């Protein structure tokens, strides 16, 4: 497949605005407030207004407030394109391709992608397993999520199973995984908004309590509130807008499975396929990437992505993470401090995209690090949702 339609859509479209509503702890904002605030700020950043918006993409389908239909009505807009695809934390990376296809094909001219969650301060939709059925009694299970749940398996346990297998097959150690958390915290120490900013060491990670062996507390992401949005419009219209436009260069997506019990290979994710697709479309290779925003729900998530995306060979993630991940290094990752230290409201993918846009634009500020001296020309974003299940790779670059 040569993906000509999507490549053509990327030619015709640009990301022209991005904003974060706020994070990490926002008891004054509901999830709905985060959406509204992020949309307003991203449009202002783009030099556009609500009246310009004719495409709306949120990570929830159906009816109600935080759906494309409900939100459009509330905002007083009548979009000619909506999408509510929700595949977990990676959704907002998937949305970039949908926005480009919708704008590139003329279904709409200005598409806004938005998210907001209050994982820390509020009740996250779908968080509790009890009482969701509405009619009394426990909710009905489905697929591997049901069969896995019969063992009392929490989400972290699913990722821990992949970590255990990686250790068994490749000799990866807890020290290796800890390096990923240490690098994230190092970047968080430069981000005044990050939820945790005090530097940590490998020993700190190893001496934090077990949550699900072999993952310690500091192998796990933080639990935050937060929201964000970004705006996609035509390349023509982008020329008249105030901020440097960001170009989408390559993309790939794949669902590998849903629950961890059906993961085909516990040491390899669908990122191996999405990375190949995205690099192929962009005409780039891993060595061309200046920095990467990789979904870091847990340290093992990053280890698997580094290997599957081809930044190192399979099984060599351990040695790789010891010397590559920090700002100024060969492959700076998660330059805002990541989900491991800065912000993770439940679905972090939005922050991967907004951080990539900041890096490409070179928006420095007090304590806000740019990954590479001389600027970032190419940034790879990779979202993971579910239990290592849903994957999307997006490569972005400067508008030439």
């Amino acid at each position, binding site marked *: 497949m040569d993906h000509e339609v999507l490549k053509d859509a990327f030619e015709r479209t640009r990301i022209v605005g991005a904003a974060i509503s706020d994070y990490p702890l926002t008891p004054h904002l509901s999830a709905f407030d985060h959406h509204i605030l992020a949309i307003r700020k991203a449009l202002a950043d783009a030099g556009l207004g609500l009246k310009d918006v004719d495409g709306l993409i949120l990570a929830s389908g159906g009816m109600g407030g935080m759906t494309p239909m409900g939100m459009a009505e509330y905002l007083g807009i009548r979009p000619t394109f909506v999408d509510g695809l929700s595949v977990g934390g990676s959704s907002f990376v998937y949305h970039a391709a949908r926005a480009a296809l919708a704008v590139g094909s003329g279904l709409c001219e200005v598409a806004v992608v938005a998210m907001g969650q209050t994982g820390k301060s509020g009740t996250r939709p779908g968080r509790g*397993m009890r009482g969701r059925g509405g009619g009394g009694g*426990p909710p009905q299970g489905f697929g*591997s999520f049901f069969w896995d749940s019969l063992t009392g*398996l929490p989400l972290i346990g699913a990722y821990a*199973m992949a970590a*255990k*297998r990686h250790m068994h097959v490749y000799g990866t150690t807890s020290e290796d995984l800890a390096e990923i958390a240490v690098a994230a915290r190092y970047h968080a120490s430069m981000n005044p908004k990050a939820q945790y900013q005090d530097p940590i060491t490998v020993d700190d990670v190893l001496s934090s309590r077990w949550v*699900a*062996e072999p993952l310690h507390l500091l192998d796990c992401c933080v639990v935050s509130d937060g929201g964000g949005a970004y705006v996609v419009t035509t390349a023509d219209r982008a020329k008249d807008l105030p901020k440097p436009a960001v170009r989408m260069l390559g993309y790939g997506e794949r669902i590998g499975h849903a629950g*961890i019990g059906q993961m085909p290979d516990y040491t390899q994710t669908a990122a191996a396929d999405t990375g190949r697709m995205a690099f192929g479309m962009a005409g780039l290779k891993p060595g061309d990437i200046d920095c990467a925003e990789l979904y870091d729900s847990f340290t093992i998530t990053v280890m698997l992505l580094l290997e599957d995306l081809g930044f190192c060979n399979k099984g060599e993630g351990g040695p790789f993470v010891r010397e590559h991940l920090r700002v100024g290094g060969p492959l700076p990752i998660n330059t805002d401090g990541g989900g491991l230290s800065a912000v993770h409201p439940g679905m972090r993918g939005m922050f991967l995209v907004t951080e990539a846009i900041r890096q490409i634009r070179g928006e420095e500020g007090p304590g806000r690090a740019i990954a590479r001296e001389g600027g970032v020309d190419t940034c790879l974003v990779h979202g993971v949702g579910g239990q290592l299940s849903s994957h999307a790779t997006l490569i972005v670059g400067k508008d030439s």
Partner: protein
Amino acid sequence: MSESPRKFFMSPPEGAERFFEATKEGKLLIQSCPSCGRKQFYPRKICIHCGSPDVEWVEASGRGAVHTYTVIHQQGMPGWREEVPYVSAIIDLEEGVRMTANVVECAPADVRIEMPVEVTFVDEGMYTLPKFRPAS
């Protein structure tokens, strides 16, 4: 054990009733496809190998090996919370399918990947569940 709250479970998905009737009789069922001859778990109304809707139940030997596992130390769900630490594992059944199950009758620190295991059935109230213990 009796003072612990009952473990939280979801109600069964469509088509799973037969599996749980069998566990009460000490039988571990998986599915086999008469069209292509391949096996699958979890139970579905369609064969994931060839798409045939005519999948059949067959009894598994109950023998297998640990493919990977985790020791759960933190869990908020009622009933489970009181049991930490416990082991959730992916079991390679000798029929060639995988099943998620607890490893029991073995200290968590003694569980190993590739360890041979055999099924045992535990009455958990809402379900009788297959769990795996070190092979005798």
